[in-house]
């Protein structure tokens, strides 16, 4: 059997950082259940998300996208209206797709460790201005097995909490342990 790599194999860590990492992961694993077992077809979940300027910057930095259209926050000036072809700063096109994860994985239950996102078919219907609060609604529409692997499919809709305008729709698959 191949020996496991060290916790600091990919980035430098002191012994205390490595220990804290292992303790954190052990805590996650002890509460986890397979996603397949946690979802029934027809399950619908919905949460509201405020797309603050800081959240948008966090996302844009995480994918190293420095397009100025997404800047509703800048160092030194802090909150700014920003500029884009739609007036003020807007949200990156697939940002809300990422946060679907926080809805379809029921935040009130243990996280299903080890699941992997495998597919998405997304419709970007309207630009979302930075500062908007959106409602993300997910509905489990299918559970299927393919080549010995188990998948859960969700249909997603992202709307404006104030006027119900639809910004985004998506079909997405999660591979479950």
């Amino acid at each position, binding site marked *: 059997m191949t020996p496991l790599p060290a916790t600091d194999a990919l980035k430098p860590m002191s012994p205390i950082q490595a220990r804290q990492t292992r303790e954190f992961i052990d805590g996650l694993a002890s509460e986890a259940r397979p996603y397949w077992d946690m979802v029934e077809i027809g399950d619908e979940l919905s949460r509201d998300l405020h797309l603050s300027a800081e959240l948008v910057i966090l996302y844009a930095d995480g994918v190293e996208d420095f397009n100025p259209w997404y800047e509703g926050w800048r160092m030194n000036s802090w909150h700014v209206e920003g500029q884009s072809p739609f007036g003020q700063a807007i949200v990156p096109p697939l940002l809300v797709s990422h946060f679907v994860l926080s809805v379809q994985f029921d935040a009130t239950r243990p996280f299903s460790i080890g699941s992997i996102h495998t597919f998405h078919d*997304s419709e*970007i219907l309207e630009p979302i201005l930075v500062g908007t609060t959106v409602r993300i609604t997910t509905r489990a529409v299918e559970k299927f097995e393919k080549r010995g692997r188990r998948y859960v499919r969700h249909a997603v809709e992202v709307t404006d909490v104030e006027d119900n305008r639809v910004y985004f729709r998506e079909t997405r698959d999660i591979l479950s342990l």
Partner: protein
Amino acid sequence: MDGSGASLPQDIAITIDTPVGYRLQSLRKKAAIQLMGSRLWGRFNPNHWDPVYAAATGLKAPIQTGEMSSAYIAEMCVNHFGAAFFKGARVVCKYVASTYADEIISTHGLVREKTPKGAGFRFIVDVWAENEAGEKKTAGWVEVDVGV
């Protein structure tokens, strides 16, 4: 795009005159473990950021969350389509292979089809992300209205 405060590059904008077969300009990104382990992605799936957990589940290294390569592809598309990518666009991506920590990923796009629509066209562009060995990691297509 790269460089805070810069404008979108106008010289690569896709217009109604852009032909089928046009290649979008690639982006290159590194699957940096520090970014993969950001709290942005939740940190609740150690397969994305911990080499020990990843190895125990049979992976040769932590794997990037698929949303990262989709975001890279979207960035490439915004560079070319600009505002049009935010109204009535479609993005279909399948994560066909894992992107491992430290791999260098490049994005690609090739205009496959343009269908007349209104005063313009609906473009269909095959998109993919691959590593330096040319192994595809993410593959799909986007549809965008131009000049409609």
